[in-house]
């Protein structure tokens, strides 16, 4: 598997090099994403999804400059400076983490650059801090949590135990859940960021008498929680957002995740020709199933390509309205931008299943229809 990725990577690099050398690039895109250290998997997926779409477009006038932010905000800011000052890119994209986005986005949009977010959607950027140059192609951070709350409500849960790490995105997550959930909260628990042992929280869950658990624990935290939860003998059903059940990490959770319900705006079994073409071409290109992040990277590139069809980046106003029109077919199905340039889309509930040897997700229902976000009303644009 390792060799495969390596070969792919070098192929990719030479592809980029070829793209940049053959033609006078009309459009220069700067991608700042996490490619090394913990969390590199997400950045790699976004990059691969994005580059796949660029490759399929067969356009030679787009140059993509990719840089690794190491998940450090100060490095991300420095790279953004580099992209703007010396690479002179027209469009920026790629950032995975909310805190890095908060560090980079306001500054680059203020400098007149377009920013397309393939993953993070912190609430300040959707509300009062929105900007005509900022487009979020993934979701506003609350989106999947809203859906979690709505799902818990529709399933008739009356007493839910909710849990997230103690940092802004965690607080947002639990508030997002509570927005559409009307029952009682058995207990609201904030864990340490980066915590790896959840024995004590699981004991609290066991003692709480809750009828469901909603948790937001991205990355390794979620893997640890699920493995420990499944071994604890507690049988209360678990709901979460897609982040802990993504294709990339699901294999590491294994059977512990089977049957868990999670909310997502995308899944590989969405039965549209665009999506099926995306899944099979991604599989062919990279020899692995695409993840949610890959789908978002792919959508981001396609949005960009669609706008380039109607306007040139040098025509700022024209290009912005071309982006806003979102005249592309998203792999997730219906997609349009709200007044704050954040997606209005459907959110599904998925279940973790095993297909052959591979753990993956299956859509079992739609929770929210054409869902926007609650911050749009604060956006004066």
């Amino acid at each position, binding site marked *: 598997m390792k060799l495969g990725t390596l070969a792919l990577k070098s192929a990719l690099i030479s592809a980029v090099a070829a793209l940049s050398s053959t033609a006078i690039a009309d459009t220069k895109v700067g991608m700042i994403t996490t490619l090394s250290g913990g969390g590199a998997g997400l950045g790699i997926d976004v990059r691969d999804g994005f580059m796949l779409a660029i490759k399929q477009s067969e356009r030679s006038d787009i140059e993509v400059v990719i840089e690794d932010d190491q998940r450090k905000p100060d490095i991300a800011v420095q790279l953004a400076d580099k992209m703007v000052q010396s690479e002179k890119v027209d469009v920026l994209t790629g950032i995975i983490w909310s805190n890095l986005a908060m560090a980079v986005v306001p500054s680059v949009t203020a400098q007149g650059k377009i920013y397309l977010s393939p993953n993070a959607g912190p609430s300040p950027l959707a509300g009062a801090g929105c900007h005509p140059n900022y487009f979020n192609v993934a979701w506003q951070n609350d989106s999947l949590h809203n859906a979690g709350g709505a799902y818990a409500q529709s399933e008739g849960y009356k007493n839910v135990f909710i849990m997230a790490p103690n940092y802004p995105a965690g607080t947002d997550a639990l508030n997002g859940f509570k927005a559409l959930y009307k029952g009682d909260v058995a207990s609201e628990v904030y864990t*340490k960021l980066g915590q790896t042992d959840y024995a004590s929280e699981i004991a609290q869950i066991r*003692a709480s008498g809750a009828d469901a658990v909603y948790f937001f624990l991205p990355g*390794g935290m979620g893997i640890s929680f699920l493995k420990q939860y499944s071994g604890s*003998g507690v049988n209360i059903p678990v709901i979460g957002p897609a982040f802990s059940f993504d294709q990339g990490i699901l294999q590491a959770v294994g059977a512990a995740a089977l049957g868990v319900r999670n909310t997502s705006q995308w899944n590989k079994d969405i039965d549209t020709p665009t999506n099926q073409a995306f899944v099979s071409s991604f599989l062919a290109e990279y020899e692995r199933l695409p993840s949610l992040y890959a789908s978002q990277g792919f959508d981001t590139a396609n949005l960009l390509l669609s706008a380039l069809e109607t306007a040139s980046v040098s025509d700022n106003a024209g290009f912005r309205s071309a982006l806003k029109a979102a005249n592309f077919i998203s792999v997730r199905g219906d997609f349009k931008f709200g007044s704050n340039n954040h997606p209005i889309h459907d959110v599904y509930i998925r279940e973790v299943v095993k297909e052959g040897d591979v753990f993956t997700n299956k859509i079992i229902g739609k929770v929210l229809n054409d869902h926007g976000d609650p911050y749009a009303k604060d956006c004066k644009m």
Partner: protein
Amino acid sequence: MTFVLLAEQILNGVQFGIMLFLMAAGLTLIFGVMGLINLAHGSLYMIGAFAAAAVAGMTGSFIMALLAALIASAAAGALVELLVIRRLYNKDHLDQVLATFALILIFSEGTRWVFGSFPLFLDIPASLSGPMTLPGGIQYPLYRLVLIGAGLSVALGLGLMITKTRIGIQIRAGKNDREMIAALGINISGLYTLIFSLGAALAGLAGALVGAIQSVQVGMGEPVLILAFVVIVIGGIGSIKGALIGALLVGLTDTLGGIFLPELLKFVTDPSTATSIGSSLSSMAIYILMGAILIWRPTGLFGTKL
């Protein structure tokens, strides 16, 4: 809060502490005997977990996975000792910190290069999964009880080794006087390599055992490493007994602090603020504990003056 919940939480604290002890024991041994600060100990923990996950994936056997973890981390430890660490014994702490910091970079990125960027899968064996009912009606995961047992046997084994065996005598002699042990004709560099790989093997074992219930990923070692340092500093550097007691203290403080601090604060302020402030305080709790202990006893609970 019921008795059952309290008892379960105390067990959790103990289990967390025992797990930290496995890391801390090697660290404190290496420091006590060789005077070396090894920041790369967390990388050996990671190597253990990755080796276990890789072998478990190939063979499906948990025992084989544990063996692989022991062998891989001990081998990595010996290799690092021979190539790098032995050049550091006579340098000051500053150089040791920097060199082992460099080793972290090499190990982390090297592991990512070999295994890729996604977490690996490692699960507990079916025979050890599921809960067990303890006296008093406490339901507790069997695997965690096994962890406690494994940790305590390692503690016992180390204690016996140091007090009863020939190697133990050499270790104690080396601790007190390097020149004496050399004068006795004991092969000191061989002894050091042995102790370093023993410490590495313990870390690797911890990584494999814990990896089964957590996420096996690059960078998993550093948070544990910092906690293990807190443990040995509280216990007194070089003391195995101190490491055990320090580990239990840290485990209990961390676990119980996370539960009781928010509850206590609810008497003073509204629930939401209490939860938030309580969680912040509890994430700082062990460092506050360590600071307090060092201010009270500048060389830790069982430390001797350096």
